[in-house]
């Protein structure tokens, strides 16, 4: 078996908000995350807002630095590299952002936007062929080569997301991290982008980390999935198995609250299952303790670690044995 493309070890990121009179408060956006991503796979990450999934995405492509922990990409610890070497290394991992209207510079033409990474990474001799490569890339993502001479505002949301995809792919990266790439798109266009991701993986062997709050999207596209809650991974495993048979109570809740076409409101009220949120923040215990329907006393004092549960999955829950479908 080939070694994983990305190995994330004990990755932690604290943010400090400054308040009045120098009093500062530290929030832990990402808490001790360990994760491996296999070559050529699509790894899905689901979680709600504030679960740390975007922080994790930015760290994976070195747009941010961790408080502690490391990201080993293709055998190299990217945060221990000197600045120039890291800059050169960036061609191997690229990012696609959520908002197709904010991720393209409105003052630059599409051709220049897509070619931008080449200006840094390509050798002097290869620069002359930038426009050829841009044209080829545009066709690759399903846009006409003439699009290079237009400005971003002349495109619709779905088309812009294709442009963003083309920019990410032009350096022939091994990894593309896509942070909610379809959440801002219309349903009728969403499927086009999801198909594009699948095609690119199959034809070019790109590894994708695909982040979404939408379970159906992840279920559709991902091979493996990591479920995040309060900055931690709570469950990792093959996507279909995780969604069919969640082992962590939070995954369970996520799945239960996703609305499909045959849901009916009022059949199983959420409030009945939820216990009162205690005031003040718990320290030390499981972050999900307050909402967990199966919590025991141990959960309030000891933080569960992500462990193999014996079925090829990793689960962070003391009560794993009692979660049954």
């Amino acid at each position: 078996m080939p070694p994983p493309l990305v190995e994330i070890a004990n990755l932690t990121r604290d943010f400090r908000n400054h308040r009045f009179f120098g009093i500062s408060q530290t929030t832990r956006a990402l808490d001790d995350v360990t994760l491996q991503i296999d070559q050529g796979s699509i790894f899905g990450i689901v979680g709600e807002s504030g679960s740390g999934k975007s922080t994790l995405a930015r760290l994976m492509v070195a747009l941010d630095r961790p408080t502690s922990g490391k990201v080993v990409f293709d055998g190299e610890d990217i945060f221990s590299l000197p600045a120039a070497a890291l800059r050169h290394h960036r061609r191997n991992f690229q990012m696609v952002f959520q908002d197709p209207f904010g991720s393209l510079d409105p003052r630059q033409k599409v051709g220049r936007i897509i070619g931008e990474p080449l200006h840094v990474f390509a050798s002097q001799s290869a620069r002359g062929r930038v426009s050829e490569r841009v044209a080829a890339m545009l066709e690759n993502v399903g846009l006409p080569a003439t699009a290079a001479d237009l400005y971003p505002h002349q495109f619709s949301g779905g088309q812009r997301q294709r442009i963003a995809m083309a920019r990410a792919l032009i350096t022939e990266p091994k990894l593309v991290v896509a942070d909610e790439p379809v959440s801002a798109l219309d349903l009728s266009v969403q499927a086009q982008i999801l198909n594009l991701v699948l095609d690119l993986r199959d034809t070019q062997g790109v590894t994708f980390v695909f982040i979404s709050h939408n379970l159906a999207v992840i279920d559709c596209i991902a091979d493996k999935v990591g479920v995040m809650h309060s900055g931690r991974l709570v469950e990792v495993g093959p996507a279909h198995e995780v969604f069919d048979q969640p082992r962590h109570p939070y995954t369970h809740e996520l799945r239960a609250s996703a609305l499909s076409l045959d849901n009916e409101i009022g059949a199983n009220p959420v409030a009945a299952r939820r216990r009162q949120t205690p005031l003040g923040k718990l320290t030390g215990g499981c972050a999900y303790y307050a909402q967990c329907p199966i919590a025991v006393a141990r959960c309030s004092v000891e933080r569960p670690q992500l462990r193999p549960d014996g079925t090829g999955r990793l689960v962070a829950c003391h009560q794993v044995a009692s979660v049954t479908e």
Partner: protein
Amino acid sequence: MNAPLLEIDNLSIAIDRPGGAGLPLLTDISLQLGRGETLGIVGESGSGKSLLALGVIGLLPEGIGSSGSIRLDGTELLPLADDDLCKVRGRRIGMIFQEPMTALNPVMKVGDQIAEGIVWHRGVGWCDARRDAVRLLDQVRIPDAAIRAKSYPHELSGGQRQRVGIAIALASKPDLLIADEPTTALDVSVQKEILEILDEHVRNDGMALMLVSHDLGVIAASCRRTMVLYAGARMEEGLTEEVLSDPRSPYTRGLLAALPQRRIGDRRLAAIPGNVPGFAALPPGCRFSDRCPDRIERCQTELPAWRSFGNGRGVRCIRAETAASEAG
């Protein structure tokens, strides 16, 4: 049968342009909504669904006008002066917006924001109104309502802010509640609870609900009837169950097929080709004709008329018409 609470006839909304016809954003909308009924308005960006919601409550942006007829309990709303419309707005029609943070006043305690509406519209004193506000917060399931009433909007989570928004809308016990993407900005676990609160008021108080959303799941879960909009025109209407299980418009069929779902083997999702058209550049003929897999030549030359099948079911599609007449 009693007259329906809300009756919209042939409503059009257009950008005013000096001299000549306006640029239409929404055309030929007719619908009826009775007390205790729920209607989902589903559509993508540019479908005009939010504009419809704003049009009903009379809050269209400047420079955009509406024509046709909107009747609430038999009273025509469109010709009303601003003052009279204000009374209708607060007392009889409530509105919930997508982004709860921008809909709340950031420097006013949430309890007072709810009480304000009660004082204004029911003419009770501030003291009673504040007590009512706490009761309403409790009703929208905010824990420790009496304490929370004294918080400012930024101290609440997104879900709690949306609950406050609902409490404000419910304060005047409206006959009709319009919710424009009420759960789009919220997490899935909160979404369901918000929809449950709305459902409770429809069931218990006989409130009518018009829910605008792009999310078929939300509509399916909370609306008995559904209207599908595309590029400013209604494409299909009917009982939600029927629309979703037996869609007659190719657009609805395409939307349902494009829902992300688990793939079998190497299969791809059934995407609708092309993009949602801007309203300034609509294709001639049927608005969906440039993306429709079932189009025939006629689709590109004439806009199909709205065809009603009775029982509230209707569709705008030439092919559906011919299919119906062939069937008998």
